[in-house]
């Protein structure tokens, strides 16, 4: 671990209905392209991108999951170790928005309670087909204490911002955690080896 060249390592998992554009968001961010006609994701896909934020190297492990029901048990196994979840829906598809509470239940059940969740409304390039009002989505996100952002993987709108904002937030929380841990420090063993990734359910 220490040989590798980064200051922070975060796991980000994308979830949401099939077809809302999770794979496109990941490919846009990691490869800078909008893939034409790739099939639906099978199981999970895994990509890595290292970004620099205020002089610190941040390695992002991005897990792109399949939205279909039959892959649910595979994707669920990734929630627990995720530092952040990107819950995605399609602004041109009311249905994908209506499913959000179901996804939130999954998060509640499987993710660790320190996980950072951001709600993303994708495909804003299709403004004329919009079915979910921005205000409605914002209100919903706020009621669930999630961040909210609208993106277009196609036009590359807000995609970079999505991941970089998330990385910033994660760094902020990691630093906060570290502070908290050195503050209370009752566990002599944990103290020195504590990592920002520590999301164990103990103590």
């Amino acid at each position: 671990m220490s040989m590798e060249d980064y200051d922070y390592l975060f796991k980000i998992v994308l979830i949401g209905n099939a077809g809302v554009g999770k794979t496109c968001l990941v490919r846009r961010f990691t490869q800078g392209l909008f893939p034409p006609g790739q099939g639906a994701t099978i199981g999970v896909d895994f990509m890595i991108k290292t970004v620099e934020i205020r002089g610190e190297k941040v390695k992002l492990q991005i897990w792109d999951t399949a939205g279909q029901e039959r892959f649910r048990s595979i994707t669920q196994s990734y929630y627990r170790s995720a530092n952040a979840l990107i819950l995605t829906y399609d602004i041109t598809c009311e249905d994908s928005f209506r499913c959000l509470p179901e996804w939130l239940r999954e998060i509640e059940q499987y993710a660790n309670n320190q996980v950072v969740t951001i709600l993303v409304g994708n495909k804003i390039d299709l403004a004329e087909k919009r079915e979910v009002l921005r205000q409605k989505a914002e209100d919903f996100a706020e009621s669930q204490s999630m961040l909210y952002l609208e993106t277009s993987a196609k036009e590359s709108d807000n995609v970079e911002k999505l991941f970089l904002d998330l990385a910033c937030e994660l760094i902020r929380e990691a630093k906060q955690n570290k502070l908290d841990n050195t503050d209370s420090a009752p566990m002599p063993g944990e103290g020195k080896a504590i990592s920002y990734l520590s999301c164990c359910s103990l103590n």
Partner: protein
Amino acid sequence: MADSGGTAAVRRCDSGSVSSIGMDTISALTELEDLERVYQQLCDGEKEVEAKLDRLVAQEGNIHTKMLALQRMGPNLQLIGGDASQLSGMITFTCSLAENVSRKVRQLDLAKTRLYNVIQRTDDILDLKFCTDGVQTALHNEDYEQAAAHIHRYLSLDQSVIELSRQGEESSAVDASLVLLQEAEQKLKVIVAEKLDEAVAAVDLAQVERFFKIFPLLGLHQQGLARFGQYLCSQLASKAEENLILATGGDLGEKRAQLIFADTLTLLLEGIARVVETHQPIVETYYGLDPIWTHSMMKSVPGEIIEPRELDPVLSEVTLMNARAELYLRFLRRRIMADFEVGDIQKHQQNMEKLLKHCLLSTNMQELIGYYIPMEEYYMRESVNKAVAMDTYEKGQLTSSMVDDCFYIVKKCISRALSSSSIDCLCAMINHANSVLESDFREVLYNKLRQGFPATTLQDIQRNVSSAVILMQSSLQQGKFNTLGIESTENAKAAFLVTLNNVEVCSENITTLKRNLENDCSKLFSQTGGSGDQAKIESCLSDLVNTSTKFKDLLQEGLTELNTTAIKPQVKPWISSFLAISHNIEEEEFNDYEANDPWVQQLIINLEQLMTEFKMALSPVIYDTLTSLMTSLVSIEMEKTVLKCSFSRLGGLQFDKELRSLVAYLTTVTTWTIRDKFARLTQMATILNLERVTEILDYWGSNSGPLTWRLTPAEVRQVLALRIDFRSEDIKRLRL
């Protein structure tokens, strides 16, 4: 070039405007200044014109010579003109000649083509007649192959030629033939279809194949393939049904009974593969096969099972089924790839991957794996819980049964997931295993450690009455209640120490598990090879490293707790008893101490006794760490104590001897270096051993040689002051 020409033109224009200053303008001028300016302009203009004239005149000679050369060329040009017109005449002639020849050739060609057409038509008409007769005979003789061959010949005749023939003189004869042939064609199609159906019904493979081959001759490729496909499907289906009935109705006492469904699936897939192999050209039609069996399989997966052990066979079966399906898909992939031209492999490969990944077999398998994972997770969690509940510890063993059991279960589940050949399935189970180990199992160990290492007065009894027999006797005399008390204390102690060992073994086992899985996976990848898949697995496996570290941290916590509750309270009084031994001594007492050691030997015996218990009960690695903690404690306490004493010259020597004995003993009990920990104390002893205050300077500053002082100058003075025979003025006066 064009540019400079442009500017030149502009300039010329300018000078023109200057020279065009007319008389009127000039006569209108009244100011001397203006006049002078215009005069100057005119003068400049004149100069320019003169220069131009000069240049032109200079070119005259040049132009003259050129003119002469041109005049000399005149006669030659006339000659060439004549030759050229002659040549042109010749070319025109040749051209018309060629035109004539080619027209004749074209006519010849046309004649030849017509001739060929005539021959072809005659042939076709003859063929038609031949076919008409042949078909009749063949049909009559039930020689369907022959009849089909005739029809095939007829169908490959040029339809326009036939059309033309019908307009010719023999139209009626041709028409009759055609009608006959078409009738025969229809009849043959019906017969062949019927015969094929009959053969299918009779399960007569030879006949099926015979009529299957006739279909393409009649232009019925699709229909033939479809019928044949149906036949093979129904064959496989009935075979599968048979096997399934055998499977469900079979005697479950048999050894393979638990794998019967996987076996059935294997039989089926092997059957399909064999068919594909023998009937290579129709591979593609077999994609639609799978619903038959997956459907029946799904029904066989039990819904509500509480007892994890009963899940075992189902889990093994499902993974085996997936592995077989993967094998089958790999087989198809290889077969299909072999058919592609080298050039379009890439394009085809993408399409094929898409097709295979989204085909019914794959999606059904994905669904099955989707059911498998939570079942396997349940199995793993429940089995680990059971192992914890049934935890037993045998005297003399370092660890208790649950650690081995737990890792056996985790390994088994991951291996099973691995055996499914599905990377996503394997990754999911690694994630779950990590979760079970890091949360569930670690929590169990954590809670055991949190109960602490019991510190009771019984410990002191044990110290003082160092025979176990006496201890037992005394506790028996104290009655049953206390015996239980002793027992439970002893149990609690053992439980704590065993848990420490357990934690350490867990950390080791997780590391080993990760390494072994890496090896297994690399073997798997040498077959399938997917760099993306490999990255996925590596990432999931690397989480195991974090978990192993968490166990190491837990071990450290436990050891600190042990040191605080079991070692510190014992060691501290032993060390402070040093205060009771005077080190302000003279020759006589020094010799007395020599004969009857006043302190250090007892300390060593006490330490030895204290640690023996741990040495027996802890793994070597943990024991070593614990001794290290103990030696640190000893050195710190010693330092504190020594600073509270006063020393004579011989007292210093006595302390030096005692310290040497202690360090020598501690060196034997641990692999850690002791000297470093005792460096400060050793230096204190050196100071307490000096003859005079100033002697310190022989060891200080530039004289220190290889010695690195761990004591500050202030501490050196403090230690010097412990010597009752050293005067404080001398110490103050020292320049350190």
